[in-house]
Structures are given as C-alpha cells and as structure tokens.
C-alpha cells in the first residue's frame, strides 16, 4: 500500500497529464510522452483512469446540480452565453399585450394601471411607450405614466423590465425603500417583504436608498452583470455580480438563488406553489442557499432539503412546514 504522500503525488501527476491531454495535440508529442509515462508503471494508467472517472462524474451531473456548482464557484461574470440572444428573441416573440388591462389608458394622462399575476403564473406586458415588463408569479405592479415621468411601483414579487430609454421622461421603479432609475437598461427587481434585489442585465441603472429621504448621496450606480441587494436591517446596500441568464432564469421557470437567506428563498418559492411552505423555527432563516429550483418541482426540492440542511419537513394537504431538526417537533 502506497503511503498517502505517494498516493497524492501520483494523483497530482495523473491530473497534470489529464489536463495536458484535454486539448487537441497536433504533433502527437504529448500523447507519445504520456504513453511513455503509462508504460513506466502500471499504477500510472490506473491513477489516470481514476482522476478521469472523477472528472466524468462532475461533467455528468444533472442540470440542477451543475447550475448550483456554477452559481457557487464560477460566478464572477460568465460571459453571456451564446444561446442568450435566441432565448431573448423567443421571449420577446412571446410578449403579449394584455388588452383588458389597458382599457381607458391615455398616453399622457395620469391613469394608474395595476398589473397582476396569479401564483405560479409569469406574465408579459408591453407598456404604451414600448417598455416590456415580465411579471413573475404572484406579483403586483402599479404603473403610473405622466407627461414627464414614468413611475412604476413593485408592490410585491418580481419583475423584469426592458426599458425604452427616454431621458426626457425618466423611468423609475419603486420597490419598498428603494428606487431604481433607468439609464438605458434592462433589469430585474425582486421584492421580498422589505428586502429588494436589483439585477442589471443590460446598460446601467441608478439605485436610491429612500430611507434617508430624498438625499441623492444614497444613490449608487450598477451596470450589467451587477446585483444590488437592499436589506432593511443593513445600513448600506450590498453590490455583487450575477450573470444575466441567472437574473432572469425565473422567466424560464427556474428560480435561481445566490447566497440568499432560506426565508427569502422560501418566500419567493411560495409565489410559485399552491402549497405554501412555512418556516416554523426562526433560526432556520439564517441558513443560506445557493442553487436553482425548478418552479414545477418545488415539492421535490423541499423534500430533499433535509439532505443539505439540519431541518425536517412535514407535509400536510395544503401546506408544508420546515422545522429545526434539533427540536424534533
């Protein structure tokens, strides 16, 4: 039996060869050198097969697990994937103008419109100026357009805006204590109680913390690929990165979370399920989750939670309860 150190050295050598052999080798020299190495000792090829099998295990994980690992480890700015334009084109094609809600809309009047979606329903709207809005499940948006200002308030839930920029008529989204000002943009706003998350997928926005009144010093600018989180308990807004595809994954019924409190994750999942999930023990709220949940598989995601968190799940006909495993309710 080889010592641990010998074993580590061997694995490392095998991994080095694995990396060297991964890409086309036009001259064939690398392959010849590698074959010579495998001929030196039969354990060499075995170690090589062994690391290769592990790489295969990673490569063949299911899509949900892959996405979870990507969100956790390769986050900063994955460049836009090639399929994005296609997906975007498809969703734009799917935008339908919801006629009933626009009855009586006057272009420059001060009419207020309320856009709503049911639980588990995503809806697309086009506003009179051409701005497109995708509304997530169980979300409410109040729209008020006037001659010199386009104001939208997200009363709850999530919405993605693809804004037709007009410097003369600013587009402002208010969500609780936060306001988001368009500077030629597409962005996502999610409001969970008083917590607000803004993810910019294109262009720039200015985001204001309204708690200190109209003080403009509390503004910060975010650009494509950035995410700003507002937590009423924190003194300042936090900024980090997010891939555009992640920010709008919910539009394809995949809810993505990056390092978010379980309470926020559950509140957002509840917008997509008719069997709401309740957190019984407050200490569970502090757990953080990173990963993807399919909107049509929330139930199985919840069932799998005890695998990763110290909690227990109890299911009743119309609701699901999560409790701390150590209390044994």
């Amino acid at each position, binding site marked *: 039996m080889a010592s641990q150190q010998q074993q580590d050295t061997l694995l490392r050598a095998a991994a080095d060869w694995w990396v060297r052999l991964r890409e086309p080798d036009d001259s064939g020299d690398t392959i010849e050198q590698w074959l010579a190495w495998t001929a030196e000792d039969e354990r060499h090829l075995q170690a090589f097969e062994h690391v290769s099998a592990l*790489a295969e295990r990673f490569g063949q994980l299911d899509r949900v697990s892959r996405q979870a690992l990507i969100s956790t480890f390769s986050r900063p700015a994955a460049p836009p994937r090639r399929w994005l334009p296609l997906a975007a084109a498809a969703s734009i094609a799917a935008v339908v103008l919801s006629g009933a809600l626009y009855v009586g809309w006057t272009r420059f009047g001060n009419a207020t419109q309320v856009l709503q979606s049911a639980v588990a329903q995503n809806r697309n709207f086009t506003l009179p100026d051409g701005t497109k809005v995708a509304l997530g499940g169980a979300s409410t948006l109040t729209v008020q357009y006037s001659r010199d200002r386009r104001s939208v308030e997200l009363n709850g839930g999530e919405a993605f805006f693809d804004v037709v920029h007009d410097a003369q008529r600013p587009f402002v989204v208010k969500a609780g204590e936060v306001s988001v000002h368009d500077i030629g943009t597409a962005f996502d706003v999610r409001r969970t109680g008083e917590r607000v998350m803004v993810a910019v997928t294109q262009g720039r926005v200015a985001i204001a913390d309204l708690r200190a009144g109209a003080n403009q010093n509390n503004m910060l600018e975010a650009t494509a690929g950035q995410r700003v989180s507002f937590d009423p308990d924190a003194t300042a807004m936090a900024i980090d990165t997010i891939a555009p595809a992640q920010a709008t994954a919910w539009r394809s019924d995949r809810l993505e979370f990056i390092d978010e409190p379980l309470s926020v994750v559950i509140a957002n999942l509840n917008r997509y399920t008719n069997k709401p999930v309740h957190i019984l023990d407050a200490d569970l709220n502090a757990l953080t989750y990173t990963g993807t949940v399919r909107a049509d598989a929330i139930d199985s995601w919840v069932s799998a939670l005890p695998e990763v968190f110290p909690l227990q799940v109890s299911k009743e006909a119309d609701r699901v309860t999560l409790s701390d495993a150590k209390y044994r309710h």
Partner: protein
Amino acid sequence: MSTVTLSVHVSDIEKLFREHNLALIAFLQCRLNSLSDAQEVAQEAYLRMLTMDNREEVDSLRGYLFKIAGNLAIDRLRKRKVRSDFAVVQSHDEPVDEQSPDHHAVAVEQVAGLRQALRELPAKASQAFVMHVIEGRDFNSVAQTMKLSERMVRYHVAHALAHCRAYVDEKEMP
C-alpha cells in the same frame, strides 16, 4: 497479393489493440469525459485503421491510431455541443423523470460531497475547474475570463482535480 497485405494488416491492428486498448480508452475518456463515448469512439478508430488504404505512408501505427481517435473525439465533441446548445434553448421541455423526488435527493447528496471538496480549494482553483469541467469551456476561454495565463488555468484545474479525487477517495473508502 492483396489478401496477404490485409492479413498482415489485421494482425498489426490486433497487436495494437492488445497493447494499447486500455490507454486508448483512457485517452478518449479524458477527451470526452464519458467512458461509454470513449468505448464507442475507440471501436470506430479501429474500424478506420482496418479500412485505411495508405498504410505504407504511416510510420507509427500507434501514433496514427491515437491521431484518428483524437480527430474522432473532436468530431463527437462538436456534435455534442450543437446538441447541448439546442438542449439549453429547449430546457423547459426536458423529460419529467429528472424531477422525481428520488432523483432529486440523490443529486443533492451527490453534489454536496463534490461541493465540499471544491470549497476546500483556493477560489481560483475551484472557479477554473468548474468553468472547464462543468461549463465545458476550453482553457483559453477560462484564461480570458479569469485574466490568467492558460498555463495558470491548467495548473489550477489539475490541482482541483487531484484534490477532489483524494477527497472523494477518502470519503468513499472507510
């Protein structure tokens, strides 16, 4: 005359197979990240060797076998990429059985161990590894995103792979 050539030829290939089949499959598994694809492509490579007609121009049969196999692997990766791009666009249509609770629980458990192994690594190593092995990006593209040299990316990926292998071995062999 041609019969004689053919029989010599076949015995050469048989010898290649005996001596190098394990290495050929290991090489292809590395390129394709799939043992079953590696076995298929190896079969196809031998078939190509048997039907090649310019044997006199080849100075190393073994070199030639690996070259053919390498090219077949590149073709297969290309086809797979087209399929997976399509699959991503179509992802909401994927089969329902992937979401069964059992499958989900197994996936969660499986990924938890791998995630823990990655957590123990320096951030750059886990990032480079996930980008290459899970996102399927080549070293050049990872290097550009991470603003590192390709050499450093290879170093990080190899380090991560060896570490994860050792971590999983320790967990799975009590």
